[in-house]
């Protein structure tokens, strides 16, 4: 298992080098190459690991914090089917994105380019660490590290106030979820004393286990942008597009799903939790899709689409079908990263995100258009591409729950519609703003997209190998629930809805048979609600202002002028007593002599009294 150490620690070495050696970091391109080389090493060893993998579970563990009254907190790494596949996905997408960034970030000054790649190396290491973690505490550690990296990368262009604010929003919301995660860990630690996966899986169902896993799920909701904690993902698009591709499409947001899949052996004992996960997954999928309908910014469309797909995966987990969830995560990583990179290439050329300012890019950016199309088709779930297989498995798995299933079905249509709305708006029709002169992106950007496109296309066929490796690590058949009574018509209905979605988008935006603006005007109140993202952002803002700022003002004022006021008053009073006593010393001899007489009288009173 030597390869395993390489996968994990190559990015760490690159991060350490870049962080500790300012010269290298500030040099720009060389820093980029160090990071890319490290990710390449990590990718190759991940591939080697994938092929050498013999189905066993290899674990290494050492004590991180010694404790006597409780089992010591350990840190270690677990290499099994699930982590190997996930590592492969992460390494591959990371490599693609870092190569792509060479082109996309070309006009960045060297120092900040170096900073960019430093953050990237740290992120890759943390993500891989999360993948290979062998206990909940370690998962929490890398979980937060990944959150911090996302904060740093979203706020990479710190001179943009909106980017800084978005980074904060992302960090705070995920942090809110992490509070639940920590509480979950605490419950498990308090009741069972240990946090490592193998011991957790051996537990029989109990209320404590339910609470613990509920806490973990809240953490997953934060990270995987489940409703209502999804508000940070659309704003996270302020970061550079490669970052969005890597973090907010393929890896970090999928961490929540990955963790739920990892904990499936324990989750199966908590049906009520799974039921909740299913429902929230379905609702998230549907709502995100509706919000994507009215989005003008191409990246935000993809962001909502990611939230929606994450909803799908969580629904699959809720339906106890970890295999479906993981396989969709596997395929989604490729085609969503591809879509983001393609969008990046368009933005790179047009220097704007607004789809309504683009148009007719098919000719000048031929390759980008083809790649974007492949991604869109895969996302819409068209048969030969991977999207079809993974989405189908999820629909099958969730068939037993009527309402969520219905929501997911409608979302298939909506997904297809908003994806092709974006496609037609961007690539077909005449260019909407004349002075822009789009040109095809450089090769260094196209190659990574090409690789992803190929993977997006063929990934569907690796379903069986993925499931088989997953079953090893989970210890039970990961696809079991949907198999027996899945009605045959589900895949066809999904396909039909997908095609319908594409058709309507084509009519609306390519051929302009019906005017979407008029539809928008007709349903104005509904559209406005969608545009305002169901006012959830405003609710959180209100919560932040009422919950924190007003209380802070009250506490600050009370502390500065009441508690401190009392202290100052006491000091001032002591001074005044001193001044008052001074008045007795008016210097007149007769009054001074009074002191003797008074003293005598007191002593005399003592003498006679006692």
């Amino acid at each position, binding site marked *: 298992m030597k390869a395993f150490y390489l996968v994990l620690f190559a990015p760490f070495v690159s991060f350490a080098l870049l962080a500790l050696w300012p010269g290298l970091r500030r040099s720009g391109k060389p820093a980029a190459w160090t990071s890319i080389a490290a990710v390449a090493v990590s990718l190759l060893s991940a591939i080697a690991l994938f092929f050498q993998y013999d189905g066993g579970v290899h674990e290494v563990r050492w004590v991180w914090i010694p404790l006597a009254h409780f089992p010591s907190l350990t840190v270690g790494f677990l290499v099994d089917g699930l982590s190997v596949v996930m590592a492969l996905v992460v390494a591959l997408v990371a490599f693609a994105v870092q190569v792509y960034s060479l082109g996309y970030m070309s006009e960045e000054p060297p120092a900040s380019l170096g900073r960019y790649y430093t953050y990237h190396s740290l992120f890759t290491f943390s993500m891989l660490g999360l993948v290979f973690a062998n206990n909940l505490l370690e998962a929490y550690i890398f979980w937060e590290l990944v959150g911090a990296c996302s904060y740093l990368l979203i706020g990479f262009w710190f001179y943009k106030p909106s980017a800084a604010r978005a980074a904060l929003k992302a960090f705070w919301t995920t942090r809110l979820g992490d509070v639940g995660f920590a509480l979950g860990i605490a419950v498990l630690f308090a009741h069972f004393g240990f946090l490592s996966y193998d011991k957790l899986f051996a537990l029989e169902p109990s209320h404590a286990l339910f609470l613990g896993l509920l806490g973990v799920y809240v953490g997953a909701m934060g990270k995987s942008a489940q409703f209502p904690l999804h508000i940070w993902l659309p704003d996270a698009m302020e970061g550079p597009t490669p970052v969005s591709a890597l973090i907010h499409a393929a890896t970090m947001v999928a961490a929540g799903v990955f963790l739920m899949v990892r904990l499936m052996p324990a989750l199966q004992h908590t049906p009520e939790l799974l039921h909740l996960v299913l429902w929230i997954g379905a609702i998230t999928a549907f709502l995100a899709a509706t919000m994507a309908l009215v989005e003008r910014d191409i990246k935000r469309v993809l962001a909502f689409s990611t939230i929606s797909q994450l909803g799908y995966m969580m629904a699959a987990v809720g339906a106890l079908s970890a295999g479906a969830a993981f396989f969709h995560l596997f395929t989604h990583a490729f085609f969503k990263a591809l879509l983001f990179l393609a969008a990046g290439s368009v933005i790179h050329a047009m220097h704007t995100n607004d789809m309504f300012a683009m148009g007719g890019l098919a000719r000048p950016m031929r390759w980008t258009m083809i790649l974007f199309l492949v991604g869109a088709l895969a996302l819409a779930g068209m048969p030969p591409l991977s999207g079809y297989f993974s989405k189908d498995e999820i629909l099958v798995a969730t068939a037993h729950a009527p309402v969520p299933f219905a929501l997911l079905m409608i979302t298939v249509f909506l997904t297809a519609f908003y994806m092709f709305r974006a496609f037609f708006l961007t690539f077909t029709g005449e260019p909407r703003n004349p002075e822009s002169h789009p040109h095809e992106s450089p090769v260094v950007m196209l190659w990574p997209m090409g690789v992803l496109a190929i993977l997006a296309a063929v990934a569907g066929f690796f379903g069986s190998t993925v499931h088989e490796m997953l079953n090893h690590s989970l210890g039970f058949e990961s696809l079991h629930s949907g198999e027996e009574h899945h009605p045959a018509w589900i895949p066809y209905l999904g396909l039909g809805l997908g095609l319908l979605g594409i058709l309507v988008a084509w009519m609306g935006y390519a051929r302009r048979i019906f005017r979407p603006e008029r539809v928008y005007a007709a349903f104005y109140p509904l559209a406005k609600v969608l545009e305002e993202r169901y006012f959830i952002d405003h609710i959180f803002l209100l919560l932040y202002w009422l919950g924190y700022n007003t209380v802070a003002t009250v506490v600050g004022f009370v502390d500065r002028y009441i508690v401190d006021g009392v202290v100052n008053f006491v000091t001032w009073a*002591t*001074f005044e007593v*001193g001044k008052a006593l001074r008045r*007795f010393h008016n210097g007149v001899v007769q009054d001074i*002599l009074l002191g*003797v007489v008074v*003293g*005598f009288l007191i002593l005399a009173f*003592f003498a006679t009294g006692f």
Partner: protein
Amino acid sequence: MQTASLLPVWLVLATLGLTFLVDLSGRPRTALRVAALGGLVALLSLIWTPDGAFLGLSVDAYVRFAQAVLLGAAVLALLASPPYMRHFRMERLAGDYALLLLFTLLGGMLLMSVRDWLALFVAFELLSIPLYAAAALNKRSPEGAEGALKFFLFGSVSSAFLLLGVGMMTLVSGSTAFSSVVVREAFLPAGLALLLVGFGFKVAMFPFYFWAPDVYESAPTPLVAFLSVAPKAAGILILFRILQEVVLPAGLSSALAWVAFASALTMVVGNLLALPQTHLKRLLAYSGVAHIGYVLAALAAGTAEGAGMSLFYFTVYLFSNMGAFLGVAAVEMMGLSPTLEGVAGLYRRSPALAMSFLAFLLSLGGIPFVLGFWSKLFVFFAAAQAGLWVLVFLGALLAVVALFYYLNVARWMLIVEEMQEEPAGPPPAAVVALVVMAAFVVVVGGLVPQVLVQPALLAAGG
């Protein structure tokens, strides 16, 4: 005939005579130096004086330690006087000043070793009367005369009370033909009450301290330095003997409660009044009152440790308080007014003086690694051992108030940058040397306190 036990007294008497002759022959400055030298010889002679009694004057370790404090104070004051006299053009009266100081010293030493009430009263008066006169020697300052007058009036009235009190006490324990129990029951509390009035004045206890600030402000500073230590030490240490050998054996245990009450009041009033002061000598006067409050706490413990601790306390107080006053004298000799504004930025003008002054302030404030820290703590520890928790807690809290005004002075000297007044010239080297020497003792003593504490405890039979 163990006259040897009175060696220091004979030496002081000899010095007195010599100083008088030198002054008579028209050289007042040398008279002052002769007095200082004689005092020093007497101080050194203490090492060889054996215990013993002669002519009704008994000398034991406790007395010798106390006499050492008195002599030390006198020598320090006398050494610092010549430059002060020269600066204030009082040199023609230097001889008289020295004589009066020696008389007071003699009074104090005798008071320490006296065994009967008659001699006690007279020695007590010998301790005060020359000081009234000495306080008025600076003929150029009308305030000096006013201060001396107040000092005299306050002293006379309280010695009237004292006379009556001593009279009553002679009936309680003196060698009288007739001393029935009933008489003793009546006279003991009354006598003690009146006695405390007299001692209260001498020691500047509350409420008999009203004279102190005015006299300290107006009298010549070296004299004030002596005045702020020697009479107080003599008063407290002999009061302790009286309590131990007369009052407590006679059964008036509530006496300790009186002392404790007086201690608490003195501490509170002394500290609070020192807060708003801007004149250094007045501030040190009130701080002196506060310090007497702390010693009274040890006295209220009524134990041998208490006595030992108060001996140690006065040794430390000798250096820190006199050092502070000599520092003020040096400031005055620089032509600056002895107020906070005068001292502003002293650090710039003469760092040695400023740093020594800081050492004294810290010692008075009770900051660690300076002698004053140990003395204050041991005094409170003695009180704690006797269970006087209220005093301990009150004292510790008042130390906070005390430190405010001490640090305030330090702030004016060290932190305030610009000089408010323009000094006429550098302080005379002799005085600065004395001040730095005292500061050295205070700082180094702080590192090795046991050198002083153990002999003090032994002396008090602790």
